[in-house]
């Protein structure tokens, strides 16, 4: 395959590009677009929850019939809940995070000219784009977007019945179609990432010399390749129920006093198929975050990453256990308590490799020469959030506690902190760290610090109080009719105010990216490795070319974490530097 640098047209360079660097930028900007849409939805939800009885005329101007009189309608609220979850989980934290950093880092960090199949890589992005376009269209159909929850549980989502549920019409069909394209995109991407890492490593880049982001992205791809097909099977069976009136997931349903024709199906079966992906999906989101944070912490502590092999084994253990815990989302479905206890055991076992990682991050920064760059701040924030959110996972993993806590704000707080905000923090860390590589300009650090402090304060202000709302059911449109929950009215307002502040902080981040990409300080030959990092991506020339390195590929002689080894007068030794006499190789 010829990846030599060549003249390209606007179309082949910016639109249908097969260059991994451009595709990474495409994933990033599409991910940012979806982040804004998804976050705006959460702001709308919080306006409704914070001030449920008040009217806001601008909402009617913005949303038309979905907010008549300046109040969001209940139908639209449920669409917001559904679409917010879908967009954030799949389009932002899966495609936006993995798509951006797998494309940017895999070829760069293993010393390859591009992906194993640049064409497949391009297809992966365009299937994602198409999935997004279909999902976006669903927001504008007459009966509204899907509103039965991002998990698409039947029976409510298994029937096209807009009289019962407005969003169950065309909106849900478009949701399922969009997700089918999304799964194709993820599979094409994942297959390509694995093939590239296994086959295209440069000379000397043994597996044990790979940077941790590459390891993390490899395990993520393996998870995706194995876990997405069951979701596809669930989506196809569900769509068959909806379009052809089959009964895979439907049985004995009474609508308007009339028994429907569905017989013999099982909605619980859908939950099994869904969560067989759904739970590994959590790790598809968080593993790339692990990799990014490990790299940023080591580079900015000027210390070798602590327990490199343990980090890799922990990733592997998480992948393996991640496939064995799906039913912990289903404790309340009436499963046999003995079966539940097996899932409790495996779920709690995941705490072991997770704790290994946290321990290793802390020991990596311990007594390090810390450089508190914006990327480092976000990485430290990630560790803090991962611990906070992970601890509540111990409660929810235990069926005896999960049953009373199920579908309450305690759950909302747990997963938003541990896989939502934490993954966002890793994504921010990655963008700040590799911004000079992506755009050949430096990002504005001052705005980065403001972004960090605003985001971490609001994130904790939003989600910590939710832990105390452990008796409040989630997904309700309003609580005014329930005397018991009036206690939380002020707290709800407090959370909503910080949700708006958090959204403002993200706008600042987007402004910083756009401004810095266009007007930021330019990267020069002297500043092209601004963090004095050892990995290969920083050895490419300032002028980016398709093929990454002009002439021959760099040869690797050592692992990527030789910081402050004492073997040199500087505190970093690039992977391309041959071992000194008496120096031992780590990999």
């Amino acid at each position, binding site marked *: 395959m010829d990846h030599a640098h060549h003249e390209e047209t606007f179309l082949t360079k910016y639109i249908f590009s097969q260059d991994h660097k451009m595709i990474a930028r495409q994933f990033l900007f599409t991910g940012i677009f979806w982040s804004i849409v998804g976050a705006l939805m959460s702001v709308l939800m919080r306006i409704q929850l914070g001030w449920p009885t008040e009217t806001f005329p601008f909402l009617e101007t913005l949303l038309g019939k979905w907010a008549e009189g300046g109040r969001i309608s209940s139908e639209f609220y449920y669409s917001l809940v559904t679409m917010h979850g879908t967009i954030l989980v799949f389009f932002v934290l899966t495609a936006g995070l993995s798509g951006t950093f797998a494309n940017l880092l895999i070829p760069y960090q293993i010393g390859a000219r591009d992906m*194993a*199949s640049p064409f*497949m890589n391009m297809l992966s992005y365009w299937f994602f784009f198409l999935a997004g376009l279909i999902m976006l269209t669903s927001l504008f159909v007459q009966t509204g977007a899907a509103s039965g929850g991002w998990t698409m549980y039947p029976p409510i989502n298994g029937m096209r019945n807009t009289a019962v549920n407005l969003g169950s019409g065309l909106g849900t069909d478009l949701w399922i179609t969009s997700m089918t394209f999304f799964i194709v995109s993820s*599979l094409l991407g*994942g*297959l*390509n990432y*694995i*093939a*590239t890492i*296994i*086959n*295209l490593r*440069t*000379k*000397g880049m043994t597996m044990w010399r790979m940077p941790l982001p590459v390891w993390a992205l490899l395990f993520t791809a393996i998870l995706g*390749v*194995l*876990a*997405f*097909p*069951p979701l*596809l*099977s*669930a989506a*196809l*069976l569900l769509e*068959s129920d909806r379009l*052809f*009136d*089959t*009964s*895979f997931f439907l*049985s004995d349903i009474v609508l308007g006093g009339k028994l429907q024709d569905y*017989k*013999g*199906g*099982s909605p619980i*079966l859908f939950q*099994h*198929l869904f969560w*067989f992906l759904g739970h590994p999906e959590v790790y598809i989101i968080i593993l790339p975050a692990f990799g990014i944070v490990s790299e940023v912490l080591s580079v900015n502590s000027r210390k070798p990453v602590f327990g490199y092999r343990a980090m890799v084994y922990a990733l592997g253990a998480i992948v393996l256990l991640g496939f064995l815990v799906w039913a912990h989302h289903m404790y309340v479905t009436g499963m046999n308590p003995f079966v539940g206890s097996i899932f409790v055991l495996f779920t709690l076992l995941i705490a072991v490799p997770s704790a290994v990682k946290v321990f290793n991050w802390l020991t990596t920064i311990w007594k390090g020469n810390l450089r508190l760059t914006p990327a480092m701040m976000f990485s430290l924030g990630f560790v803090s959030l991962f611990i906070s959110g992970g601890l509540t996972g111990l409660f929810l993993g235990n069926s005896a506690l999960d049953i009373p806590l199920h579908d309450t704000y305690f759950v909302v707080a747990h997963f938003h902190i541990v896989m939502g905000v934490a993954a966002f923090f890793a994504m921010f860390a990655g963008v700040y760290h590799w911004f000079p590589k992506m755009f050949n300009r430096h990002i504005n650090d001052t705005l980065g610090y403001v972004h960090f402090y605003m985001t971490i304060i609001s994130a904790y202000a939003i989600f910590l109080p939710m832990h105390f709302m452990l008796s409040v059911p989630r997904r309700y449109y309003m609580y005014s009719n329930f005397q018991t929950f009036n206690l939380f009215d002020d707290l709800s307002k407090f959370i909503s105010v910080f949700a708006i502040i958090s959204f403002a902080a993200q706008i600042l981040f987007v402004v910083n990216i756009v401004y810095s990409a266009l007007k930021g300080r330019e990267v020069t030959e002297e500043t092209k490795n601004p963090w004095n990092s050892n990995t290969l991506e920083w*050895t490419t020339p300032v002028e980016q070319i398709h093929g990454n*390195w002009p*002439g*021959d*590929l*760099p*040869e690797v*002689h050592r692992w990527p974490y030789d910081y402050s080894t004492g073997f040199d007068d500087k505190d970093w030794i*690039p992977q*391309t*530097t*041959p071992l000194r006499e008496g120096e031992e190789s780590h990999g």
Partner: protein
Amino acid sequence: MSELTYTNKPKEFKIHPKMFVLYLSMASMVMLFSAFSSALIVKRGDTKHWINVHIPIEFLLSTIVIIFSSLTIYLAYKNIGTKKFRVFSLITIVLACLFVFLQVKGWNALSANGTPYVGNPSGTFVYFISGIHGVHYVFGIFFLILLDRLYSGREKVLEYSVYYNILQQFWHFIGLIWVYLYLFFKFIIYN
């Protein structure tokens, strides 16, 4: 960065990267059919609503056809660059079309025996799973015809034989999936 060292040694592959991608995608396909199989096993356990289905003879015939097509595609691959390639390639295409024809006949027979697509999912699963397998198979037929047209009468076809090798391995795999599905339906689920 004067210490940078570079290599110009060309990469040697034990497995062609595109073949490797195929092997990985086989893992995905295995997961897809495993999901369908496990769903059917769960359904089979629901004795209250279970209705047994008679698997028609056409599915046995299509199983025999698909096994033969695996043999002919292998012979076509082994004879790339010779006149025999075209013969075996065309036989494979004919057998592939025959397989699709028999599957459709099998669905008609199922329906005629009182197992419609819409109704109790016990029977619907047979249509659905064999249909999803059929989609994979039609995808294979498309490439079978494409590569047959590309290779016939061309010189230097050996250079491109890797693509035919990928296709034949995919063909064997998808054939194996059908053999598994047939045995699974006939002897485990609907016995």
